């Protein structure tokens, strides 16, 4: 292998990746800058004016500021469900990794089942209606927790197995009660895997389209993914607005990506390959 040929492979990779992966994103951005007529051409040309601001204003104010409601809903949904997921999954992972009982097999079976079985949507809707949570944000929060638990538990269990038991025991000798052991000794040690879990689950919940579509109907409760879906029919000739919307709801995942790039990759692989 000469230096030249490896250079050439590198250049080719950069070129191909730019065409395949960057061009679609650049297309989103430049279309969001265009006016309606120019955007309708769907081409890859330079915007002939700066229309991003007026597009933004129109997207945000349309249908009674639905976009703002949606961002608030999505934020509450994401923060609440991920918080619950972290605490509940860490608790299960902790006891599951530490205490061997005859139920462990059953619990692990249920976790695997949760990873594979597609949720039964209509019975879930029926059940949510029965307990008065259908079409309500906190109903959807609990749904996201239920669907996210198996993956989170697996991440935590694998990680907790690497923390020495002597730590718990030392804490107990120092007089710590079970809750102290968990919340003051173990949970802080789980920070690396918690970061991974937060990143993966919050991106998943924020980008979730299917569950809000089924369990949270109605404009008053729209999440950001649903605004995009609703706008798709309304704006079907205003590509500039459609792509401004896409750009707007891509900002949160982009920020997550910029801040946690390394954690995402490290944590996902730790969980995925071991699991």
């Amino acid at each position, binding site marked *: 292998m000469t230096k030249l040929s490896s250079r050439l492979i590198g250049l080719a990779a950069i070129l191909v990746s730019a065409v395949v992966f960057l061009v679609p994103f650049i297309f989103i951005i430049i279309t969001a800058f265009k006016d309606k007529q120019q955007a309708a051409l769907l081409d890859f040309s330079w915007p002939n004016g700066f229309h991003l601001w007026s597009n933004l204003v129109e997207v945000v104010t349309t249908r009674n500021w639905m976009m703002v409601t949606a961002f608030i809903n999505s934020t509450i949904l994401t923060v609440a469900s991920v918080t619950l997921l972290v605490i509940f999954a860490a608790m299960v992972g902790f006891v599951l990794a530490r205490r061997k009982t005859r139920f462990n097999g059953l619990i692990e079976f249920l976790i695997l089942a949760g990873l594979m079985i597609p949720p039964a949507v209509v019975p879930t809707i029926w059940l949510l209606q029965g307990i008065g949570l259908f079409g309500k944000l906190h109903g959807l929060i609990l749904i996201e*927790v239920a669907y996210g638990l198996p993956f989170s538990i697996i991440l935590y269990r694998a990680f907790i197995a690497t923390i020495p038991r002597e730590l718990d025991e030392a804490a107990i*000798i120092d007089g710590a009660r079970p809750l102290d052991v968990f919340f003051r000794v173990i949970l802080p040690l789980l920070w690396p895997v918690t970061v991974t879990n937060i990143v993966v689950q919050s991106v998943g919940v924020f*980008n979730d389209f299917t569950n809000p579509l089924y369990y949270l109907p109605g404009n008053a409760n729209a999440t950001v993914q649903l605004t995009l879906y609703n706008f798709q029919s309304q704006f079907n000739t205003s590509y500039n607005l459609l792509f401004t919307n896409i750009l707007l709801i891509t900002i949160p995942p982009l920020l997550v990506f910029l801040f946690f790039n390394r954690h995402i990759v490290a944590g996902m692989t730790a969980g995925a390959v071991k699991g």
Partner: protein
Amino acid sequence: MTALSEAGSAISHGGGRAIRRSPYPGWFFLPAALVYGILFLAPTLASLYFSLTRWTLFNSTFIGLDNFAQFFREPFLVQGLVNTVIYAVVTSGLKVVLGMLLALLLTSAVMARGYLRSVVFFPVLVSTVGVGITFTVLMHPTQGMINEALALLGVKGPGWLVDPKLALLSVALVDVWKGVGLATVIYIAGIVAIPKDYYEAARIDGATKWQNFLYVTLPLSRPATATVITLSFIGGLRTFDLIWAMTRGGPGFSSDTIASVIYKQYQAGFYGLSTAGNVVLFILIAILVVPLTMLLNRRQGHE
């Protein structure tokens, strides 16, 4: 220190029986078990019953296996079943091959490695609906950028999403575009974990690059392959949002998958039939994924 930890383990062993004194209280399972049991397990079990009924959400009439009979009688529902399998096989196959190739490239001393890793991974984080809409526009038969670029090369691009023969595969390609970054990351972890000794031994035996790949990298990254296949195969079988954002199952029913059929039946108010679709999907996943994971893991054991 040893004395302390021995004393500690004595306490935890002694306390294991008496629930009150265990440092690992069983009620820690409770919050998760409640949410999971009520919102996931109960509806799943209920679906086994409701799939056998004609159902309005208020009343259900037991009709035996009629929903399933209807499911398999309707040609477009059967096509949805076939499409689901094709979609899952195509997407997971491509993710394995492309993920492996990208991981090989990105673990070698290629330049701009950080940039390449980021650029490949970023689509994983972007909203599926957003990606779907973007590619629907890019794949527009006459105005879309993809066909305009092909026209510059003198190729007449196909109607990606409007040709019934192509629609499903076009969506599958977009799925690969969006998901290959995850496969790549898993492969990178798998390849990095291979001990360097193997490559050194291979070098002493005079192995070529190709032999290195075939006899060292490929077999030793099998756990990663198992993970990528299982993840993307299950994901492919359950796929809904991308199909829905790009084609709504069309043109006709040519790109319907079971998940989109379930949604359409739900929208139309056929709740029993929709739930039967869920059970079919569940059985399909069980039939295909369980033997697949067993096969992947058994081979791994022999290595």
